[in-house]
């Protein structure tokens, strides 16, 4: 073999190695899509609220692997009524998501999350349980969290919009004023390095309470304006949330739900310590720092929170749906002083759960069909009660 041949072989070998390295280095991936997700943890939008007036459930239906053909639906069940009815507000494509504020008294207010080329969030309000809807709009898009919008006993409304700004309205669904931003909170709230605002609720004093995601600390981030600062141009917020247990001190926390109940507040929070995650329910008057807290339930590795619910039981209950693949596990808690109870294994694909009195309803979507399964307290298993066919408008958002 002469020198030319050796040189040729060497050159060929070098080129082969380079080509293989390039192929295996991942440089051949197509255009990547950057995530514009902010620092807030992903909180599932599927949710429920049960008050003395009604129960409401929000979940996604349609082709869940195809965003333009995924449509979020609102179902309502008035108190005392055994049937769920489709009550999705009309007039806007809701491929991006849907959130509601469903107070025990006053109208129900829904907000549409942004999707495709719609960059601000329309809102709609119904005084009659979904028969008629009044339109409005927010100045920006709602954040993707179940309690992104809240309604007080009166006309007051609050919402968390992109840019993590809390805005408020005094009843005009199209006129909103800024209240506070995450940035302001991050620099001013002691005890909770605020990473994101994750929930808003109507506090007992007619002022908003904010649920927050805290980078670390010894208490769950429930924020209110200092009483001395009400009406002032300079408002200082303070963390009045429940203290974490000793073992969780220093953990990062996120408020998943924060709702006004008949006589106070109820909430759900996720506590993360390293790779471990657990959920706690908490209740309080909503003023000061008098809270009670449930024992935590661990979120097993490989499982995630799929849906949350507030209400039921005695009115202050809570519920969560944990999911791993198609498997689902429902946990319910009746209220302060009670413990978490694991329901029988929920139907595969359960997307949301609602507790009405002593009965827990699970919602299983399959395309345009929604099956409702009931688990009465003490029963051995789930029973399908009804299948609702929803007129999903496939292709309308393509």
């Amino acid at each position, binding site marked *: 073999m002469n020198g030319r041949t050796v040189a040729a072989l060497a050159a060929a070998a070098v080129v082969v190695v380079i080509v293989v390295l390039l192929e295996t280095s991942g440089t*051949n991936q197509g255009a990547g899509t950057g995530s514009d997700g902010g620092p807030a943890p992903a909180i599932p939008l599927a949710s429920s609220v049960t008050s003395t007036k009604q129960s409401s459930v929000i979940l996604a239906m349609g082709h869940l692997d195809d965003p333009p053909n995924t449509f979020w*639906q609102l179902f309502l069940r008035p108190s005392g009524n055994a049937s769920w009815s489709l009550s*999705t507000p009309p007039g806007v494509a*809701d491929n991006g998501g849907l959130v509601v504020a469903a107070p025990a008294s006053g109208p129900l207010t829904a907000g549409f999350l942004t999707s495709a080329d719609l960059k601000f969030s329309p809102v709609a309000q119904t005084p009659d349980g979904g028969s008629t809807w009044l339109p409005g*709009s927010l*100045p920006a898009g709602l954040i993707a969290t179940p309690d992104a919008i809240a309604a007080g006993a009166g006309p007051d409304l609050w919402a968390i919009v992109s840019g993590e700004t809390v805005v408020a309205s005094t009843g005009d669904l*199209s006129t909103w004023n800024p209240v506070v931003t995450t940035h302001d909170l991050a620099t001013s709230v002691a005890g909770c390095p605020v990473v994101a605002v994750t929930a808003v609720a109507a506090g007992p004093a007619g002022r908003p309470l904010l649920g927050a995601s805290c980078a670390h600390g010894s208490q769950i981030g429930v924020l209110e304006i200092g009483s001395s600062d009400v009406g002032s141009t300079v408002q200082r917020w303070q963390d009045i949330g429940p203290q974490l247990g000793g073992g969780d001190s220093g953990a990062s926390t996120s408020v998943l739900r924060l709702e006004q109940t008949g006589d106070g507040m109820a909430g759900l929070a996720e506590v993360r310590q390293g790779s471990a995650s657990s959920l706690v329910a908490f209740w309080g008057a909503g003023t000061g720092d008098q809270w009670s807290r449930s024992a935590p339930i661990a979120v097993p590795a490989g499982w995630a929170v799929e849906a949350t619910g507030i209400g039921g039981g005695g009115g202050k209950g809570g519920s969560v749906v944990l999911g791993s693949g198609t498997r689902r596990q429902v946990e319910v808690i009746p209220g302060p002083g009670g413990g978490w109870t694991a329901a029988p294994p929920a139907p595969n694909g359960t997307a949301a759960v609602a507790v009405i009195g002593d009965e827990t309803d699970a919602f299983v979507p399959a395309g345009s069909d929604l099956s409702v399964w009931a688990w009465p307290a003490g029963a051995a298993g789930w029973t399908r009660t009804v299948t609702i066919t929803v007129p*999903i408008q496939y292709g309308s*958002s393509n």
Partner: protein
Amino acid sequence: MPGMGAAPGAGNSLIVQTFHQALLRQGELIFVVLILLVVAWNVLRSLQYSRAVASGERFPAPRPATVSEPIGRKVVRIGFGALWIFDGLLQMQSAMPLGMPSNVIQPAAATSPTWVQHLVGFGVTTWSRHPSAAAASAVWIQLGIGILLLVAPRGLWSRAAGLASVGWGLVVWVFGSAFGSLFAPGLTVLFGAPGAVLIYVVGGVLIALPERAWVGRQLGRIITVSVGVFLLVMAGLQAWPGRGFWQGGTADKPGTLAGMAQQMATTPQPHALSSLVSSFASFDEAHGWGINLFVVIVLAAIGMGLIQGRRLLYPAVVALVVVGVADWIFIEDFGFWGGTGTDPNSMLPLLLLTVTGYLALVRAPAAAVAEEASPAATPIAERALVEGESADVPAAEPRGAIEPVTEGVGSRGRSWWERIDPGYAGRLAAALGAVVIVLVGAAPMAAASVNRTADPILAEAIDGTPNVTAGPAPDFHLVDQRGQPVSLADLRGYAVALTFLDPVCTTDCPIIAQEFRVASQMLGPNAQRAKFVAIVANPIYNTVSAVDAFDRQEGLDSQPNWLFLTGSRSELQSVWNAYGIAAFVSPAGGMVAHSDEAFVIDARGTTRRVLSTDPGPAQAEDQSSFAGLLASQMSQVLHS
């Protein structure tokens, strides 16, 4: 309506018709130029004949002995000339204007790195904005290069043809084939690596070399060794584990090679050929390991044979031809079927290059050819170069000197047109004609690359041609985004573009709004005489705050000639009825469905045009095209 319109198919009749019309017009221009060149040549011959008769000389004058063009150069020149012509004819396929980006360019870049996709995106964008012009340009450029290679056998014209081949080949290789998918996974010579057009570039380089480069065996050795190294690289890649070539197939899906062959078999083509390719795919699925082993051994053996040369060279070349033809038939499937095939793939040009190298090595010319003449050289010296005269032509002839060769009586004192060889003049005319063909293609392509506004024909392909009407536009009394009352009568004296938009729409309405905004910009100073008006097409979200929010979202809140009008539900319904607009609420989270139409109303309040505003697939070029179409309609109304 919710549910965007579909993209025009590759065979859209309007686009195809426009493409053919462009080819016809350009063809007519080329024909006229060629006729003029032929006439000029005939006039020249006639004058020379007359002069020869008058002076008693022979006509044409006897030609001295010539030195032939090196055989290797001749093969590569004619071979690639024929290939460029064939490729130019392939570009005439009707599906090329719309099918080239979607069926050829984008798939080639789909698995390439992001930076390659961005680079290719420029080519896709340019082509997509001007599909008919781009497709026609590709036809003429490639035909012209091919013809120039054939009609200009020697000298500067031939070398220029080689350079043109290099230039256009590189453009196509980068922007049209994503570097021949070199940066995508699964690189293999069996599928076409390194890209057929890159081999055209190499051929062009060889043609562009001075003819003295073909003297001796050095060039031939370089070519054969280079091809040999390339084949060794391909053999190594073919043998490398984990790249899918050792597996013929699993129960679920075919292996890489079988899958490619199956895909090629599904291309529209004669049934006999698809059966042949499909049969090979099935065979490879069952014997993938063995076939790959064979391929690796053969590629490596041929590569070594080409590198070592001597007695192994001829068998290696023959083996490559046999294997190459088999690959061209059974795997590459000839490369040009399906309606958007752009070339016969890489194996033919690779074989051509290899044969060129072999001939350049074993049949290299021994004698030096004459020094090349400068462009200003005497036609006689140029003729010597063209005809390959012997070294009798003084090599030290100063560049630019006009010294006639002593070839006949009375040559002194003659004009250039009297002394030029008619054969050379004919080839010169042909070369000029070929250059004209290239320029007829290159000029529109260059113009298209800098014109950021897509052809209005794209919008017409999606939405149809605007309807010409002549009737009074129904009046309306609504309020604008600031709550101020506005009626159509208030807009007398302006040309009005009117449409109907949903302020909380998620898809087409924002696109239409942007098209209106761009159309206003395209009007330039005339925008001051125009109003772009939208009326709410949502019976629920009809508040002033909703339209204001939409305007701010779309950046229209500061556009002075933009109005977004709304009113009560009954007021809106009456306007929708008057304009024939449907708008109805969809259940279960669906968008409000409404008609997508625009009306161009003149300054006297007469509706002059009705256009569909369906954005189609919402590609950027479609939006640009509609904006241009709307602006052109508005401009016509403004000036009528």
